């Protein structure tokens, strides 16, 4: 379709406005982390870096960060294993109920987090609680992995669809054992899809608050939980703001990584 000049300009303006809408709040957090005023008087009149040093020395925030990273890594490992298995099963085999698998994998992320949260919470308490395993970091990992499977599954499935089985057949024809074929042919083919999916899984887990609220044992505080707990405490506001600013700065990292590792289309889907 041939767009008229004014129409192109209108779309361009709309795009600029949209990006402004997306980025202004984030920039505000960054600027505010240097705002000398404790209540973020606007516009800021004196700039300081003391909140940054205060945040650096905040033990609670640091512990929460470590907990979040551990939970994220755990969930990512489970998601990688389970997601890859389901993707292979769905792509390489025909079986009864195959079409419902994609629905099943999407379900934990499509249902409201609070539903997944309370379902896992009550199930954990009645099943695992009877076995004497209380809620802790592991229950958080299990909860997160449940909705992270879909990211790996989607990435690997798309890759398997695109690559087909020709290369693997050729490898088998040339006398490679199934395990050799997997090591030298299949795995290199899906490696970048695994990375993209794993990155997404980690990010989803790192950011999750609702499911964490219900699956975390006492004393397990992830970074989102820490932020939320401190959000309504006025004298913690500057430190919370610095943590928020750090998270904004670091959010550039996975996008950059995904671009480097897997090409522009990686990370294009956060599901």
């Amino acid at each position, binding site marked *: 379709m041939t767009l008229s000049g004014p129409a192109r300009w209108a779309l361009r303006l709309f795009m600029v406005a949209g990006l402004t809408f*997306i980025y202004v709040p984030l920039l505000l*957090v960054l600027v505010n982390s240097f705002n000398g005023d404790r209540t973020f008087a*606007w516009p800021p009149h004196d700039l300081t870096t003391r909140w940054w040093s205060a945040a650096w020395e905040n033990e609670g925030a640091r512990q929460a960060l470590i907990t979040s990273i551990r939970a994220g890594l755990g969930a990512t490992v489970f998601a990688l294993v389970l997601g890859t298995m389901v993707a292979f099963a769905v792509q390489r085999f025909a079986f009864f109920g195959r079409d419902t698998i994609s629905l099943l994998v*999407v379900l934990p992320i499509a249902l*409201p987090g609070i539903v997944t949260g309370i379902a896992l919470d009550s199930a954990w308490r009645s099943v695992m609680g009877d076995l004497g395993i209380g809620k802790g970091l592991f229950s958080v990992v299990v909860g997160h992995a449940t909705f992270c499977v879909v990211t790996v599954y989607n990435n690997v499935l798309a890759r398997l669809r695109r690559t087909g089985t020709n290369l693997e057949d050729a490898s088998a024809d040339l006398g490679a054992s199934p395990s050799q074929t997997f090591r030298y042919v299949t795995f290199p083919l899906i490696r970048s899809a695994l990375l993209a999916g794993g990155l997404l899984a980690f990010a989803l887990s790192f950011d999750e608050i609702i499911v964490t609220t219900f699956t975390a044992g006492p004393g397990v505080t992830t*970074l*989102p939980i820490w932020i939320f707990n401190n959000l309504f405490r006025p004298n913690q506001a500057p430190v919370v703001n610095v943590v928020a600013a750090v998270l904004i700065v670091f*959010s550039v990292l996975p996008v950059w990584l995904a671009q480097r590792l897997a090409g522009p289309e990686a990370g294009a*889907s956060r599901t």
Partner: protein
Amino acid sequence: MTSLGSYLHRHPRLRLAGLLSAPLLWLVVAYLGALAVLLVSAFWTVNGFTGGVVRRFSLQNFRTLLAEEVYRAVTLRSIGVAAAVTVLCVVLAVPMAFFMAKVASARARHALVIAILTPLWASYLVKAYAWRILLANGGPIDTLLGGPGHGPGYGLPATVIVLSYLWLPYMILPIYAGLERLPDSLLEASADLGARAGRTFRAVVLPMLVPSIFAGSIFTFSLSLGDYIAVQIVGGKTQLIGNLVYANIGAANNLPFAAAIATVPVVIMVIYLFAVRRSGALEEL
């Protein structure tokens, strides 16, 4: 290892079983099982004196849910918020995605995709928190609009704005992907047949975008429907379904009733998923 590998290679059913057993154990037995138990417990009640759960079938919870004005109001409000957020996201996302896919140069397109992607990785809480500062009484938005109290402040409109803000990229990306797949030749053909830009958009572009829009709406709708955090941060006294569920688990300690309330968004979402599955939206995720 090798002999096991070749054994499995000769028995595809066994391989399939091996591949599916662990994920299905997790997703079907653990997850769906947990959901089923939750659903069943919605039909239980809590003993008013002991606070213990009475495991006997009763429609009490659902009767309360339907009869009491407040629950109906909150349910309708939540659906309204989710719908408003979805519509707002579509209205914002379609022109932006269209510009990205069909107007911007190849280089600009790449940069724009990154610009839309990056905020997705910034924490959900951080974004809600940013809006709390923006919307504060006497904060930047108030100042921009002429002084304290001139902006929307915290409340229902703020909730809709912030939820739209949070989920907007989830809408832009599938629509962008859909538009990118849409061949330019179709648009040219439409123009050659005499259609103006507006007609082409309505008759060619929009129908082909339907699965992508549905895919995006799964996120915007479902995420809004279950949210109870953003609304606590910027919603003032506004209550959504999520707040009710949360209050009944925490303060009221009435898990059966919380489960009954939670079935409302689940039923809505399952119906929604089945409805949009026909359009192929799940493939677009």
